[in-house]
């Protein structure tokens, strides 16, 4: 139950009254725009809301209270690593020397940030066992695209134009096949083995002179370490293809396994997962990419370089002809990277190893408890997350994973990731992270246990859940059939949806 009353859920546009607001910037001279011919000017002013600051603050504070967030409660959203976001990182990113620095200043004015980026690249290269790292990609998915474009450039540089396919297991994140398509490759989907791991024989059968790369998430999306990895990587390299590792699940393996050392040629890292930068309701994140020797020449430009005198500089345009080029403007989501750097420094090498150990410990602990009342399809130690299934429960009671998830909201929890990975029926992907206390883990397990009991005794309670949230289940069909994607009342072209 939120303390926010419905009357506080008006849109900005409904709160608007002509004549309110103002006082933020000085008024320009009346003739400020008179030198610009009127054909270049806007015919009518933008119909933007007019709101006083007190009203504005109440608007956003009340809206914020309709959200569930890490800082308000346990958020075991599998695959997303919703760990605590340290506040000192926020302080750091706001230091005027970082926040106020223009991206096109001469290098000598940016030595602090360039040093930080260079050190962060080195630290991530050590963690990934990679030769070098680019910090440019703005998110994991853009990291994937950067990596696969480098794979493409590598094959073309060898005159090998026949490699048109990327092999992806069926348990992969959707970004993997979508990335392959964006980079001009055909995706070949390989079914998983019954134990949840990669089916090496199926991969072998699909590998060949047309294979550009495989994309493997390790630990996998079912939360298991790919124990047949060695065999798979050998087969990939024998076939002349490259191995991409989706590093979404890096939080499990820091200090225990380095993808580059094991034979992966390229990987991306989600700093908003493993390195604690805030998820922000859907970004911004950052998706640095590590590469081994083979892909080094193709890294996007500009790279951060250290000169012999210890100073730092950016590559100049055209300095490295083999580069795949730019993947974005400027040098990266630097503000996010400052936070990641602060996190790595706060933990140090030993602390990062403990992060992974505790993440894996917490997941296995929860798995051992949840197995008492839900299916847990893979009977092995898991990594930092585990997949449970409501398949048996559904057969017995008709209650689906969706209903369990919605009922968890009534108990004050954010539900786990549901219906992913696609390879497990009625899946719940549960990732506790290392920053949740054992009391929190126990309380969540007890809530889930009670809900499973309710499924047997009073399933209607679950079908109708959530009961107590700011809104209840939504009409998503009408939202998609008659999309209302913007407010129009202020321009008068369409009346808004009635309350």
């Amino acid at each position, binding site marked *: 139950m939120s303390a926010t009353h419905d009357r506080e859920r008006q849109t900005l546009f409904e709160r608007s009254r002509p004549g*309110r607001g103002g006082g933020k910037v000085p008024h320009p001279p009346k003739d400020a725009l008179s030198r610009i011919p009127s054909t*270049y000017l806007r015919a009518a002013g933008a119909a933007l809301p007019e709101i006083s600051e007190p009203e504005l603050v109440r608007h956003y504070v009340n809206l914020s209270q309709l959200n569930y967030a890490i800082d308000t409660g346990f958020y075991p959203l599998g695959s997303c690593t919703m760990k605590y976001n340290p506040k000192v990182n926020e302080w750091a990113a706001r230091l005027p020397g970082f926040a106020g620095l223009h991206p096109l200043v001469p290098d000598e004015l940016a030595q*602090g940030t360039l040093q930080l980026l260079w050190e962060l690249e080195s630290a991530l290269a050590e963690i990934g066992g990679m030769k070098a790292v680019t910090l440019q990609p703005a998110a994991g998915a853009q990291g994937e695209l950067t990596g696969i*474009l480098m794979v493409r450039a590598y094959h073309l540089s060898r005159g090998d134009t026949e490699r048109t396919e990327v092999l992806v297991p069926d348990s992969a994140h959707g970004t993997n096949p979508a990335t392959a398509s*964006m980079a001009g490759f055909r995706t070949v989907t390989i079914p998983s083995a019954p134990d949840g791991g990669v089916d090496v024989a199926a991969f072998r059968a699909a590998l060949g002179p047309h294979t550009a790369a495989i994309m493997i998430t390790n630990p996998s999306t079912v939360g298991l370490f790919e124990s047949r990895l060695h065999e798979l990587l050998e087969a990939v390299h024998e076939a002349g293809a490259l191995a991409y590792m989706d590093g979404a699940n890096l939080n499990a393996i820091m200090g225990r396994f380095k993808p580059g050392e094991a034979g992966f040629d390229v990987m991306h890292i989600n700093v908003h997962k493993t390195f604690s930068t805030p*998820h922000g309701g859907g970004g911004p994140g950052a998706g640095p990419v590590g590469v081994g020797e083979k892909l080094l020449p193709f890294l996007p430009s500009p790279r951060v370089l250290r000169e012999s005198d210890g100073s730092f500089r950016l590559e*100049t345009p055209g300095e490295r002809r083999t580069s795949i080029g730019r993947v974005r403007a400027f040098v990266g989501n630097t503000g996010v990277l400052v936070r990641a750097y602060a996190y790595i420094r706060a933990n140090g090498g030993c602390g990062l190893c403990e*992060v992974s150990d505790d993440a894996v410990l917490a997941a296995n602990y929860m798995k051992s408890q949840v197995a008492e009342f839900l299916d847990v399809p893979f009977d092995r130690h898991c990594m930092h997350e585990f997949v449970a299934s409501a398949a048996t429960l559904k057969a017995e009671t008709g209650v689906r994973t969706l209903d369990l998830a919605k009922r968890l909201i009534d108990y004050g929890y954010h539900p786990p990731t549901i219906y992913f990975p696609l390879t497990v029926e009625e899946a719940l992907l549960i990732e506790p992270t290392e920053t949740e206390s054992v009391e929190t883990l126990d309380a969540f397990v007890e809530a889930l246990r009670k809900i499973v009991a309710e499924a047997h005794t009073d399933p209607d309670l679950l079908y109708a859940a959530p009961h107590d949230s700011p809104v209840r289940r*939504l009409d998503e069909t009408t939202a998609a059939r008659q999309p209302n*994607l913007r407010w129009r009342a202020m321009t008068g072209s369409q009346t808004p949806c009635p309350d």
Partner: protein
Amino acid sequence: MAYSPHTPEDRARMLAAIGVASVDELFADIPESLRSSGLSLPAPDSEAELTHRLQALAQRNRVDLVSFLGAGAYRHFIPPVVDQMLLRSEFYTAYTPYQPEISQGTLQTIYEYQSLMAELTGLDVVSASHYDGATATAEAALMTCRATSRDRVLVSRSVHPHYRQTICTYFAGASLVSDEIPLVADGPAAGTTDLAALERMLADAEHPVAGVVAANPSFLGLLEPMAEIGRLAHAAGALFVSVVEPVSLAVLATPGEYRADIAAGDGQPLGIPLAYGGPYLGILACREALVRGIPGRLVGMTTDIDGKRAFVMTLRAREQDIRREKASSNICTNQALCALSASIYVAALGPHGLRDVAALGAARAAELEAALAAAGVPRLHSGPYLNEFAVRADDAAGVHARLLERGILAGLPLARVEPGDPALRDALLVCATEVTTAAEIAAFAGAIGEEVAR
């Protein structure tokens, strides 16, 4: 580790419940030959040491100069209410609103962002954000290819060079072609998109064009003949992509008014700090007819089962987690929090405030133009501009370096980003915004006058 809640007893209890003697046993699935032993990284900093280290690094950056640098990232006054609201934990530490019942705060703010950007651009549909202006522009170019089933776009050199390079990178992967439209070399239209060249390029029947991409204001600060560019594009069956700067849209003609099909741009000027290039905000907007081809999240208004107004992610069948290899893009995590900054900023300023920001920047820029011209540093072009323009200065790189020593950041030596363009060899791109003061303009003009006279 720095942020652990566990005591040794907690860990022992968890191990006992699992039935293992040590954490090492949980990693037994990692084959012996692939195991690594620890990380060779520095020892942890205490928080006190960490703040000291970060402060020292931040202080090695120089942000104290009098700056006239823009070129795609702009210094503006950011009302403190923006960051105060942004820092609400409930916005800051939530993720993608997969569970709409407990994400109405994020969902409504995204809907409002879509609505505000729709008002500014004059278009119907706005995606809930892309990474930055460059990637939003590349995605716009890709949209035109999908929508027309053609594989060639024409990109005006009026577009930011980083954006053009990003389009090239994205297009190389998809085996699509992007050709550059040259700028007019001299005369009153010098520096703007060459319409005659565009017409010739569009007439190539062998290779029909999917989209034409031009920027207004252009990278060089000039106002472009957008309506004419759009007419030529449409006459050839191509779509028209307008690259925009959002503050300018408070006063300049909108993409909707000059009939662009898609608008892309960077939302950084809307309350987002410079932060050495990011995180910024990719704005991507289109006409209603293109709604099913736009990449990125969309939030729509609907009702819940009690009939109460609510918001939800919608038209999800375009997205990677549903459509996989057939998705319109691989985008997943975007820049939601930056979109929230932009919304709070626009709402805090209101329509008149935003117009004042744009108009005051234009007024300051005119003062800057006059002062620099009087100092012997005239404009390079003669067409209209809003708040950014190029000036001619012999040995621009040398003058720029000497002014740095005097505490003045004299914009951008254009040869640094366009090394191959002889027309820009001795030119500086300078800008003014509402935060530029008369004293700063006088200091800049005085100093550059002395430097060019040497």
